[in-house]
């Protein structure tokens, strides 16, 4: 029975993970970074209009860690025409380092930060990235790419050369660890 249970669990998860199209990868805070959360079912579900991101326990993407910047219903993720969209709800949202004010299309590996001074950064993992619509392409056109330094903490450097506000904050590396 132990063998059966172990095999059942292992194989079931392998198949399910293989068939998962959209996931959210936590990048920051460090304690949660690297965790992948499946969202395909909610995105495709007719019963759920949008996935809410926030500090409220009923949010689908529940911010479990302490982040004073994150609102109870901070942002929304939705899905239409094979594209995932992010939209600010009660809080500020940054996509790849740029603040967005309206519904914005996301591509594979796009980074979502829940506010300028937020430590909550996540990335969309889209295994089957679809063709983007005209509006989506337009939304994506003005984006700047961001890089997260290997040193940890949410120090974000916008590729234009100008560091963002967060990167200017000096953090004691010992405390950050």
């Amino acid at each position, binding site marked *: *029975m*132990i*063998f*059966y*249970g*172990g*095999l*059942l*669990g*292992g*194989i*079931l*998860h*392998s*198949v*399910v*993970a293989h*068939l*998962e199209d959209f996931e*959210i990868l936590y990048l920051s805070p460090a304690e949660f*970074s*690297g*965790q*992948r*959360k*499946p*969202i*395909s*079912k*909610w995105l*495709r579900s007719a019963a759920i209009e949008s996935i809410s991101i926030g500090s409220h*326990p*009923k*949010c*689908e*993407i*529940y911010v*479990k860690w302490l982040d004073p910047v994150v609102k109870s219903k901070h942002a929304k993720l939705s899905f239409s025409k094979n594209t995932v969209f992010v939209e600010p709800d009660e809080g500020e949202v940054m996509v790849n380092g740029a603040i967005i004010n309206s519904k914005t299309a996301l591509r594979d590996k796009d980074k979502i930060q829940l506010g300028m001074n937020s430590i909550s950064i996540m990335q969309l993992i889209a295994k089957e990235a679809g063709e983007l619509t005209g509006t989506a392409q337009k939304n994506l056109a003005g984006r700047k790419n961001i890089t997260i330094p290997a040193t940890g903490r949410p120090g974000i450097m916008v590729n234009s050369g100008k560091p963002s506000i967060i990167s200017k904050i000096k953090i004691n590396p010992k405390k950050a660890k």
Partner: protein
Amino acid sequence: MKPGNTCGIKEKGRFLKTMRSFSNGTVKVAFSLKGTYRRLNWLWFGALGGLVSWVFALSGKITLPWLRELLSAGFDTDVQISTALYDSIFLGAAMGFGITLALSIVEEMGQSRMFSFWRILLRCVIAIVLGMLIFFLQELLTAKVLPNNNYLGHLLGWTIFGTVIGLICTLLSTIELKSGLIGGLIAGIVAVHIYYPLVYSDILIRA
């Protein structure tokens, strides 16, 4: 140890500290939700579920005389199968409960929502009912329809059980219905081909 000898105490303390940090680290890594460990978590928890099922199947068998009589009156004709049917009902309940409990916990841990015991409980109740039904039907099939083919009866029963567990894991979870069904079916078929030779090796040797 002499009262003045603090060196030994210090060394012992250091050793215990090292051991504690090592065990904490190992446990943390083994149950981490990151990377490959996330997949391994499902394996650990599945095995744990199997262990829970085994313990329940051994110790949780309740004596229900009315059920025994009912089964005996209904199914004991030329061959006495009521005892096997009675046992299979409890085995199904234990398997359904143990494995679903473990897999539901690991699924809840791995999703982005808040951990919910109610969702786990709901899945467990459904799994107990369906597990009882599947194992009862499997035993009945093996005894009445396929008396000379123990393997086929078990293959059908355990494969259906795996598929049903996959289906139950999709209820109120992040697993899509299609993925759960395919995963459960494949897992059921593979698992039975490893489980069956281990448990029924005497039958295979005789064959």
